[in-house]
């Protein structure tokens, strides 16, 4: 389908169409002090005119000089919470007349439509697909949420300081498929979206929108806007060549840098829970007071906890050094062997949401520098 122009004032029509189609629409909203992905019911729920400034251990919202809907970058949370909820019951069992009766959970939730998915985030979802769907034990809830998902992606036209998708080759321009792709163009005279359908479902929705064909000038404006985000990253401190990172880490499993980062790391797990690709979960069984009812719950877990590597009588990774090394080497190196691609999409969340500002890109530099010594 050709690229079309949708006036910014008509963005709400896209959301309303999705709602009419039966989707629960999720998009960025402004919480008190951060942008979060949450349910929306109209374009008025979007954080229009707000942008984020992210740095090591710091996230601040501020008003933008313009009224862009998607001038902010990635939200505090990621889309993974909607595809694989942080806590969920897997099954219940009860004892009835001496017999155990099991009841599995079914997915009653409506299909989801995400609006505002960035290129790095599409990569993150693809990475989680590999974990949850393509493995030998597919996760039924994830698969059901994912198969029914309608994805409206947005090209980034601005990067914040922690963004490094340009280093991980995952953005800022959307290259993976989505149902509809948007590029927001805004200047003193005009405010519109370049709209491109990427699937039959997307084409059906776009056909119902009040669009007009995008001329060369409009398309060029979109390319320039994305180019600006790319340039911000390329001239920033987190632009690096990631092609040899796997080998670098494999060569440096005993680098003194691990001791250094362990001094600073709180093993609080914020990085892993903010990360859009970290997928680990814990399974917890409990009984009630009567002992006649039992439940099994799954919740997000983290390799930064003691319990995570607890196996029959002991914890394998007691020290922060071993936990941080496990996380970083998995994310950037062993993940590649396991799944065929890096586990990092360069969204920068682990940098911004670390309460002591540990920066994975800086740690890579430290390891590289220590090796060169």
């Amino acid at each position, binding site marked *: 389908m050709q690229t079309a122009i949708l006036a910014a004032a008509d963005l709400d029509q896209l959301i309303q169409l999705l709602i009419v189609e039966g989707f629960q629409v999720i998009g960025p909203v402004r*919480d*008190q*002090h*951060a942008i*979060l992905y949450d349910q929306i019911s109209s374009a008025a729920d979007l954080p229009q005119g707000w942008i984020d400034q992210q740095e090591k*251990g*710091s*996230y*601040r*919202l501020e008003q933008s000089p313009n009224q862009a809907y998607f001038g902010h970058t990635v939200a*505090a*949370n990621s889309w993974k*919470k909607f595809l694989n909820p*942080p*806590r969920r019951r897997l099954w219940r069992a009860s004892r009835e007349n001496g017999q155990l009766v099991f009841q599995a959970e079914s997915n009653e939730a409506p299909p989801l439509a995400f609006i505002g998915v960035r290129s790095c985030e599409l990569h993150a979802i693809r990475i989680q697909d590999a974990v949850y769907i393509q493995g030998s034990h597919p996760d039924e809830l994830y698969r059901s949420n994912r198969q029914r998902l309608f994805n409206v992606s947005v090209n980034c036209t601005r990067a914040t300081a922690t963004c490094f998708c340009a280093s991980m080759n995952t953005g800022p321009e959307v290259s993976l498929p989505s149902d509809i792709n948007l590029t927001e163009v805004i200047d003193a005279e005009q405010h519109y979206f370049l709209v491109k359908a990427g699937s039959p479902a997307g084409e059906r929705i776009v056909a119902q929108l009040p669009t007009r064909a995008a001329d060369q000038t409009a398309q060029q404006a979109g390319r320039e806007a994305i180019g600006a985000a790319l340039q911000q990253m390329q001239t920033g401190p987190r632009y690096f060549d990631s092609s040899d990172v796997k080998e670098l880490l494999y060569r440096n499993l005993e680098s003194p840098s691990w001791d250094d980062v362990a*001094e*600073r*790391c*709180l*093993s*609080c*797990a*914020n990085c892993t*829970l*903010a990360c859009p690709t970290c997928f680990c979960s814990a399974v*917890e*069984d*409990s*009984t*009630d*007071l*009567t*002992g006649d009812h039992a439940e099994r719950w799954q*919740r*997000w877990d*983290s390799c*930064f*906890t*003691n*319990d995570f590597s607890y196996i029959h009588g002991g914890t394998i990774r*007691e*020290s*922060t050094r071993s936990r941080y090394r496990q996380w970083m080497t998995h994310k950037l190196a062993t993940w590649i062997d396991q799944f065929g691609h890096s586990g990092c999409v360069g969204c920068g969340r682990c940098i*911004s*949401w*670390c*309460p*002591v*500002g540990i920066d994975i890109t800086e740690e890579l530099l430290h390891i590289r520098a220590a090796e060169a010594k």
Partner: protein
Amino acid sequence: MSAAKATVAVWKFSSCDGCQLSLLDCEDELLAVAEQVEIAYFMEASSRQLPGPYDLSIVEGSITTPEQLELIQSVRQQSRFLVAIGACATAGGIQALRNLVDVKDYIATVYAHPEYISTLATSTPISEHVTVDFELRGCPINKQQLLEVISAFLRQRRPQISDHAVCIECKLSGVACLTTSRGLPCMGPVTHAGCGALCPRYDRPCFGCYGPKENPNPDAMSQWWQASLGVDSVKIIENMRNFNAAAPAFHNAAERMNTGGKDD
């Protein structure tokens, strides 16, 4: 019938009674608890006292008097399982602030007749005196966690009580971090989970009332607070010296901050 039920005793040492009250607060579940166990000794709830031994003793409070030194030994001897509940029983409580000063000065200031007061120089957790089978943290404890511990005891399984950071509860609840999004000093990254991120969910940084999490790193957090959040050392020490002032990780971090980063 009742002979087949496990007997439970609830003991109070130096404490405010808030944790015992958590058991009485289990209004919806109280009948179920009473059906499953024989409450043999629980002075806060009933003056009926059945003699020991007890299958499960739930112990609240810290050890602060000479009498308590003896009583806790007797409680241990009469109890098959002993669970310490709350910051007092697991870390000495807020009254462990006395451990940092000469308690005689406090007694002279507070009481008209200090000669009537018989107290120890320190407030110490139960585990410093007897073997404790499980410690349930919090100031006060979370009643759902108490029910989980009792249920686990009844079914002879491990309680599902996580010792990771409060941060995990914030992230699972969808709370945007107060430290990173607003620069507020929050004890969450070094504090044991269990409250369900109660304070951060109500827009208040964590007080650390569940005490240190496993593998805590309060020094690194304090350094970040000073260097990046502009928090002064007095404020950091106040955060460490709270309900769990005598918990070793918090105590040592406060001491190091007090002595300018040098170990004693």
